[in-house]
């Protein structure tokens, strides 16, 4: 499943996309994110999945543009820590 967490507003689209088929719930992204945006827990949208999966925490979902801003400077962009930490390549950002 491609889980889009975030929102779209007048200024643009802000989604963190987690491919739950690739995610193995290792939690490396949780440690890598300096702002506590990610967590590992039960798959909310598939009640029959037993294995844990990464997701964006509830309280960051509506302000993700700002939560992720420090990792996205306008110049001198570096690879995102969460994306880099994910060995199965399950995380991507829409902006």
């Amino acid at each position, binding site marked *: *499943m*491609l*889980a*889009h967490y975030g*929102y*779209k*507003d*007048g200024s643009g*689209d802000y*989604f963190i996309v987690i491919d739950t088929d690739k995610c193995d719930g290792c939690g490396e992204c949780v440690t890598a994110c300096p702002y506590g945006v990610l967590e590992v827990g039960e798959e*909310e*949208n*598939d*009640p*029959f999945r037993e294995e844990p999966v990464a997701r964006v925490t509830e309280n960051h979902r*509506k302000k993700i543009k700002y939560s992720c801003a420090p990792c996205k400077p306008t110049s001198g962009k570096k690879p995102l820590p969460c994306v880099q930490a994910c060995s199965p390549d399950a995380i991507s950002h*829409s902006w």
Partner: protein
Amino acid sequence: MEKEYWRWPESKWTSPDIDWKTGDIISAGVDVGSVSSQAVVLVNGKLFCYSNFRTGSDSPESAQKVMDKALEETGLALEKIHFTVGTGYGRVNVPFANRAITEIACHARGANFMYGPSVRTILDMGGQDCKAIHCDERGKVTNFLMNDKCAAGTGRGMEVFADLLSIPIEEMGQLSFKVEKEPEPVSSTCVIFAKSEAVGLLRKGWPKEKVLAAYSSAMAHRVVELLGRIKVEKDFAVTGGIAKNEGIVKRIESELKMEALEPQYDTQIAGALGAALFAKALVEKERGLR
């Protein structure tokens, strides 16, 4: 008292053919949304009864009320229901629910039942959010996106416009086509700004129908943009209250160049229906049947 144009009709329905006493599994789903709440009861996986009412300020109370209304005159008591799943915005506030499941999962499951296994893309236009869901032939979510930060393209936005234009909400769809030429959509996507833009157009002398058409096409355009993020694949279905507004649905269809499936059920019950189907599956799991 001034007429409340935004008031949409509440409803309830009971199957004339099903006797709940014959049911091995009686399961229920309650969807407490931000604007409306629904309860659905299934007997052996068949639709037995449902109700659709406005959500009050108190979620547990709304859940209780909508369930009481569904069960009214059916002779079925709440205690006889084997498993209840709560869903929607207030899913954790359903006092008699055995479990809470997200509305994303429930809508996909419900739409699969309502429209059949061919449905792949579901657009749920709810009271205060909008969901784009892609699912497989079993109604399992394969891709989803939810926008609940902005009320543009939602039922509440339509209610605001019903009041502004003094048009009963059920007539808005049809009236939006009473224009000679489709006007330019309003430029604002935000409900508040779209409203002030509409006031400006009315002052300029635009007829109500033309303002409504301009707002309807802006709303359709906005949700089609949202759909673009997930894979839009046939068959396509619209659920939620706005699915009853042909002015929006037809405009979405023409932008997508894809027809939406014709609903056989009340489009507002999709979430509660999906929740009741999950409840049934969970009873079967408990009993070792699956």
